[in-house]
């Protein structure tokens, strides 16, 4: 391996290295470069340039190669055995933004749906864009319940960074003044449709504590000068976000953070760079850089910097640390606590209720709103009225009302096999009209941190590069199962209270990972004996390495986590720049 000296080493030396270019890597790159640090971003996958590399973004339905853009079953089974499990993410339009499972193996000691995208921008291109703040209750939860370890920060520590992130990415939403879902810096909210408005009005009379609001989503509805200057424009309501947006209507690393970073002149981005380990200097007691494997040439190379940000996603940042062993860190980098890879959390979902609206048959909508409604958590808020005896923590609902389209009677859409469906002119005319209004509420529930929900490094099974792989052992427990029963019941109650008909609760089952919110594998905490990271996302045992993706999470809350990851990243970058200036790194 090249142990570089002199000029060659100089050439590979930066002020900062960021591993990963997704939603947190993009933020680390932006903040560090804007604060003057020469920054190298290492991305294991290929380049995806905003606008240029969204090959399916403007395809019309009739341009699809396959029926409705669905991939052939043979291709799904051969290459996407895991990625296909969500049932909605992987299509002809999106497959270039997801990994091939046959090329990226791991071991399922228990089922784990690890949904990944290896390319510049990562999953920031395909994310759900829902953007909620963790609340004061969330940061206090572990301490109050005696679960896991206490967060080393409180809401007030992160609040200004939430402001900072929301102003840059642009979040459309409605302020509600709820303590369990703090308000942020919002662009104008999207509109509810007739049925959602009626649902809100009626349900809130019966259940006033269950507030119904429009989803808070990272879309531009009134772009700022800064956003326009980056080349982003208003959301056009195409709802084809997952293909990449030619308008920059939603936030991604590719349209936002990386563009801002590039404009500073301080950014170098190197795709095709698989970071395999951190380089630790025992004498200096700090990391001096990282080793990579070039995905094309298969050559090893080293890059050096004063500070390293791991933003490779919860599991891959943990993987890099597990694979970075030395005499100082025989069990993995910064793993004196033995917490590395443990406490895997996600959000459990796939449970709720749906019903049919009895009115508004003469009303419809125009535009495709890339957003739904949201019901903030209303259980276990710290008072007697919301206290549950059967489980800790809580859940929120995401949902919405719509009129089903022409595909509503297809056999694979779960059509009831109640009689012949017919054919000919009558059916054609019926399908040319929208179907009856339906409304659904789907729960997103908090999963507690369990030490034995863990991922481990498997050196016996290697990938195509000869690198060790991960083994997953993650399950949900009684607390989550009890919560799911309530998630189903409470959703049905709300729809019934609002006068919906044919209300049906459902629990379609959940496998860990399906929330695509994996987190917790290098948790923050106050004590190096029980946590991997400190209050500033520094590795307790090696202060010039910061981990700011989902790995850092001490508890999961029930809200979508990306906004919090971004805020933690911006806060950590600010800390790193100041500490470096002081000579503390």
């Amino acid at each position, binding site marked *: 391996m090249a142990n570089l000296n002199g000029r060659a080493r100089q050439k590979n030396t930066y002020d900062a290295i960021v591993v990963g270019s997704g939603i947190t890597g993009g933020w680390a790159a932006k903040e560090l470069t804007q604060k003057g640090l020469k920054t190298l971003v290492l991305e294991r996958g290929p380049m995806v340039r905003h606008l240029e590399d969204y090959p399916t973004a403007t395809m019309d339905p009739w341009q699809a190669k396959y029926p409705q853009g669905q991939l*052939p079953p043979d291709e799904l089974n051969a290459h996407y055995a895991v990625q296909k499990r969500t049932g909605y993410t992987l299509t002809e339009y999106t497959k270039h933004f997801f990994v091939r499972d046959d090329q990226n193996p791991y071991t399922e000691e228990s089922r784990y749906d690890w949904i990944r995208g290896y390319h510049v921008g990562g999953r920031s291109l395909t994310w759900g864009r829902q953007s909620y703040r963790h609340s004061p209750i969330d940061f206090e939860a572990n301490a109050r319940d005696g679960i896991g370890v206490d967060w080393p920060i409180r809401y007030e520590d992160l609040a200004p960074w939430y402001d900072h992130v929301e102003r840059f990415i642009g979040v459309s939403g409605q302020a509600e003044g709820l303590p369990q879902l703090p308000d942020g810096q919002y662009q104008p909210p999207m*509109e509810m449709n007739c049925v959602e408005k009626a649902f809100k009005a009626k349900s809130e009379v019966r259940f006033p504590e269950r507030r119904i609001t429009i989803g808070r989503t990272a879309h531009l509805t009134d772009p700022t000068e800064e956003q326009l200057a980056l080349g982003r424009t208003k959301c056009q309501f195409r709802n084809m976000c997952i293909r990449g947006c030619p308008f920059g209507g939603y936030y991604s690393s590719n349209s936002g953070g990386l563009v801002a970073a590039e404009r500073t002149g301080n950014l170098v981005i190197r795709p095709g760079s698989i970071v395999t380990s951190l380089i630790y200097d025992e004498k200096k007691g700090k990391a001096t850089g990282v080793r990579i494997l070039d995905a094309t040439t298969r050559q090893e190379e080293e890059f050096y910097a004063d500070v390293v940000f791991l933003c490779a996603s919860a599991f891959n940042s943990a993987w890099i640390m597990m694979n970075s062993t030395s005499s100082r860190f025989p069990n993995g980098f910064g793993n004196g606590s033995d917490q590395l890879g443990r406490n895997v959390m996600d959000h459990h979902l796939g449970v709720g209720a749906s019903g049919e609206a009895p009115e508004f048959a003469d009303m419809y909508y*125009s535009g495709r*709103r890339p957003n739904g409604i949201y019901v903030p958590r209303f259980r276990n808020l710290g008072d007697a009225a919301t206290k549950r005896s059967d489980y800790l923590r809580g859940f929120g609902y995401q949902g919405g009302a719509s009129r089903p389209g022409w595909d509503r009677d297809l*056999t694979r859409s*779960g059509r009831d*096999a109640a009689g012949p469906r017919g054919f000919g002119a009558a059916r054609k005319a019926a*399908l040319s009209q*929208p179907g009856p209004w339906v409304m659904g509420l789907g729960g997103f529930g908090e999963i507690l941190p369990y030490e034995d929900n863990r991922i481990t490094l498997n050196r016996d099974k290697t990938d195509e590069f000869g690198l060790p792989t991960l083994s997953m052992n993650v399950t949900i427990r009684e607390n989550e199962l009890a919560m799911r029963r309530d998630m189903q019941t409470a959703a049905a109650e709300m729809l019934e209270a609002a006068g919906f008909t044919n209300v049906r609760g459902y629990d379609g089952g959940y496998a860990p990972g399906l929330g695509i919110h994996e987190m917790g594998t290098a948790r923050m905490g106050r004590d190096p004996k029980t946590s991997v990271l400190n209050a500033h996302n520094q590795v307790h045992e090696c202060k010039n390495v910061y981990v700011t993706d989902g790995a850092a999470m001490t508890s999961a809350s029930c809200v979508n986590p990306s906004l919090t990851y971004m805020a933690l990243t911006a806060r950590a970058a600010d800390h790193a720049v100041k500490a470096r200036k002081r000579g503390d790194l």
Partner: protein
Amino acid sequence: MLLSRRDAIRGLTFTFGVAATGFAGRAMAAAPALAWTPTALTPDQARLVDVVAELIIPKTDTPGAREAGVPQFVDRALADYFDKAQAERLRAGLVRMDADARAAHGDVFVALTPEQQTELLNGYDREASAVQTSGEGHFFPLLEDLVTVGYFTSEPGATVALRYDPVPGAYHGCVPLAELGRGWATR
């Protein structure tokens, strides 16, 4: 783009018209010569699919399956999309339709009157709905689904039978259906 595509569709219809007037008899009128070359279907199967697709989604005040290129869509799905089991189920269904047509009326499916054809399809539709598992094992729902998807995702299906707006620009949550007239092609 849109215009040239519509011209192409018009051309296709015109070809059918010429072919149909060139022959006498009910069989040839119902199953004109194909204006395209199938890859996965045999020419006979393609003619059968052409007739069945038009029965499933006929031309009304809006274009039908034939005009929308649905038979070609079925041929492509058979070539590139279906797995082996699905392809076999569909092909077996086509064989069966001709066999049933011969047994009942002494000729292949495409040679029957529209009434006779419709009656056979009604039988398959009833039969499929009686299958306990949402009819997935029966060839007819498979074919009808494919025709339905092919039609409503075609340019005439999406833009004429339905409404299509590639770039809406805004969302309006409460619009009278009467102002829009038809369902949206995409969501």
